[in-house]
């Protein structure tokens, strides 16, 4: 190449760049998203970091507003039958995938069938089990997918039939498991449809780049029905698991939003960047599972002693530093469809010294004490916060004559052990998938017989109480929301009075939001779609 040519090329490139910078004037959101997405397919994802990406590029029948309440999404409106069993959704006119193909009722029917197809192996399919025959199809009992309660009446009408009336159904439709997938692409490419060169979007953004370990990049989807009101043109969802490093990059101006931050820095943030750290109640419970299948934790006295001797008030404010509120019950405060007064045991009001005295008494009754200490292993997955709480609680149990051996392992190993029942006390947490008390209460339901064993699902401690199970079944059939709430509250009381597990604190969401960002509304689901945000430079 001659020098003149090089010069020419360089000038052209410069002019092009200049033109682009003057015309595009793109507003870019740099979001720290935490973990690396495992997939972009709504039927294959399972984490909140994946939800942030997926929920920006695909929209379900119902979507969230800035407060994370359900609002019309791809469906403009819907009718519900009198018995609460049949929902009829009317799709918007002119909605399309970003390749120009219209979004039709067929895409939804196809998506729900794909979700429930056992071959898809979707982690979270169970969230849509309220749909007629969904569970049976997902577990392989019914093999004809057309028996699923999702039908296309015409191109623009989707009819969903439920097993029984479900008060949280609309809310669960905002979940990514209820998202449509482009039937034409999935049929052509199979699971590979999420490759960046084939992927399409029907939401406010479309995926343009995915660099595992670094970021996912999305751009505004001009074919989205509400595109004119979408303010941010480009979003980077950054992968960075080291929270301290993430905060550094936020302070360096490289990130606009942090979706988590190190609890130790909370005070610093409040002092130095006032108003930027958002710590808000988040529907979820942090708890310790007690393995009740074997000695010694099958003894309710020991469970009680362990639970009442946990000084919960000190955990959130002091040990963690972000002020999480103490949990004494099982259903997070603020959960919908529930009774006003949350479960509050009498012992929670007792002074701590009395609680310890009572706990020591209980331990003595059960045959343990300083001379005959109880040796317990406490398992947690490797994480600074889990470790601190474990250390604190081990110290709280020491006066009861309990020797705690701490044992940490990676997440996969930890949950493998919990599921196998290979533990005594184990750390766990549950964030609500949909805003309803049944979501946490189901964690304590007796397992179901399967083959020659029991499938305990997420009930790692294997707590089992017939009365509790009966109440849950009764609540599921109850149509009156108030009565249903009361039945569920009874169930919660039974389980908690028996110390089925040790709730420790209610989760909080921890975001750091730059003053440049507007439209970020704190909410109990911690869902903030980019669509509602604006950024001023």
């Amino acid at each position, binding site marked *: 190449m001659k020098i003149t040519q090089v010069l020419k090329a360089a000038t052209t490139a410069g002019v092009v760049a200049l033109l682009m910078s003057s015309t595009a004037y793109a507003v870019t959101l740099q979001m720290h998203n935490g973990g690396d997405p495992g997939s972009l397919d709504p039927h294959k994802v399972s984490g909140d970091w994946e939800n942030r990406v997926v929920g920006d590029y695909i929209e379900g029948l119902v979507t969230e507003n800035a407060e994370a309440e359900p609002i019309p999404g791809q469906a403009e409106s819907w009718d519900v039958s009198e018995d609460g069993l049949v929902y009829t959704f009317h799709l918007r006119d002119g909605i399309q995938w970003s390749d120009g193909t219209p979004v039709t009722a067929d895409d939804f029917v196809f998506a729900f069938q794909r979700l429930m197809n056992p071959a898809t192996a979707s982690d979270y399919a169970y969230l849509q089990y309220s749909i007629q025959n969904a569970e049976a199809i997902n577990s392989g009992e019914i093999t004809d997918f057309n028996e699923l309660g999702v039908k296309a009446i015409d191109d623009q009408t989707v009819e969903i039939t439920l097993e029984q009336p479900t008060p949280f159904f609309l809310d669960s439709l905002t979940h990514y498991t209820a998202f449509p997938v482009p039937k034409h692409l999935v049929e052509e490419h199979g699971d590979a449809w999420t490759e960046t060169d084939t992927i399409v979007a029907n939401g406010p953004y479309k995926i343009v780049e995915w660099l595992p370990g670094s970021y996912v990049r999305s751009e505004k989807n001009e074919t989205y029905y509400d595109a004119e009101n979408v303010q941010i043109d480009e979003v980077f969802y950054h992968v960075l698991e080291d929270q301290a490093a993430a905060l550094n990059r936020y302070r360096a101006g490289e990130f606009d939003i942090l979706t988590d931050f*190190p609890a130790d*820095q909370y005070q610093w943030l409040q002092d130095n960047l006032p108003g930027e750290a958002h710590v808000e109640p988040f529907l979820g419970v942090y708890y310790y599972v007690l393995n009740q299948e074997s000695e010694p934790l099958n003894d309710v006295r020991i469970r009680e002693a362990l639970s009442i001797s946990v*000084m919960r008030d000190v955990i959130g404010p002091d040990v963690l530093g972000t002020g999480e509120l103490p949990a004494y019950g099982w259903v997070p405060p603020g959960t919908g469809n529930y009774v006003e007064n949350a479960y509050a045991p009498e012992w929670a009001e007792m002074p701590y010294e009395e609680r310890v005295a009572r706990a020591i008494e209980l331990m003595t009754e059960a045959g343990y004490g300083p001379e005959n200490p109880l040796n317990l292993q406490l398992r947690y997955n*490797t994480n600074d916060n889990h470790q*601190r709480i474990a*250390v*604190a609680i*081990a110290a709280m149990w020491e006066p009861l004559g309990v020797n705690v051996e*701490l044992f940490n392992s990676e997440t996969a190993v930890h949950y493998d052990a919990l599921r196998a029942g290979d533990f005594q006390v184990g750390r766990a947490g549950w964030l609500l998938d949909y805003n309803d008390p049944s979501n946490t209460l189901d964690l304590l339901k007796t397992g179901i017989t399967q083959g020659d064993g029991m499938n305990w699902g997420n009930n790692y401690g294997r707590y089992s109480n017939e009365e509790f199970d009966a109440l849950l079944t009764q609540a599921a059939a109850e149509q009156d929301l108030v009565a249903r709430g009361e039945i569920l509250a009874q169930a919660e009381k039974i389980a908690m009075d028996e110390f089925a597990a040790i709730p420790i604190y209610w989760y909080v969401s921890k975001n750091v939001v730059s003053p440049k960002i507007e439209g970020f509304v704190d909410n109990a689901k911690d869902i903030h779609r980019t669509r509602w945000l604006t950024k001023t430079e």
Partner: protein
Amino acid sequence: MAGITGKDAVLTDYANKLATLDAPKGRSLTQDALRRLTRNKAAVVSIFLLLAIVLIAFIGPYFLPWSYSQVDWTAIRKPPDFDKGHFFGTDQNGRDMLARVLQGTQMSIIVAAVATVVSVSIGVVYGAIAGYFGGRVDAVMMRIVDIMYALPYILFVIILVVMFGRNPVLLFVGIGAIEWLTMARIVRGQTLSLKEKEFVEAAKAGGAKPWTIIMRHIVPNLTGPVVIYATLTIPEIIIAESFLSYLGLGVQEPQTSLGTLISFGAPVAEVLPWMLLAPAAVLVTMLLCLTYIGDGLRDALDPKDR
């Protein structure tokens, strides 16, 4: 972990010099070396400092008001407070940092020592066998060593830790077991030259078994390389351990190590600086001392300068 401190190159160099030397090696060399070492001021100061750290780490905890696992609910994440006896402050669990630093130093020392002993033992035995038997045995055994140099050790250590869990003994026997390569090479070289010596010939003629000859006549002549090797290996292992701690693969709570303490201190360097400063200072001092001692020993034992 080929050469975090450049150990392999240093030692290989040293071994080459030893091999080219024909002088008898034995007591006189070590005595001579000791005399020369005492003339190296940096090394002497380092030895005393290191001894002091080791002593304080092991004896100090008996004189402290707090134990390393004791929680002081009234002092969570507090800066140094002399009235309460938290001379280095407390961590986010209200545990005394001084007590934890001492315990962590203990753990790091133990771990490094165990790993070093393991690697030296394997290296000596392997190298001596290869050197003593020579011929095809030697060729095959050394080829294996050559190729094992090319394995990404830190990856294996991570896989091992993931497999075996957080048991410190098991873990550092694991590290030690892959640190022996250089040692094996040196010992082989030494053995090759030693086995031609008269005293070995005599022992052979007397009907001594190869194992007896190796252990009684060859191994005792390896003091020099072993000492240098150990001073260079200990820092490597301490650094490797701190890296594993950063990945969350360190020792189990409530026990701790310098690496674990530093990896917890690093993210809070601005807000709780005392959590980083104390362990980092101990680590830096220890590693500096070991480096100076290593340098001093190498100079002192250098056969060329005699």
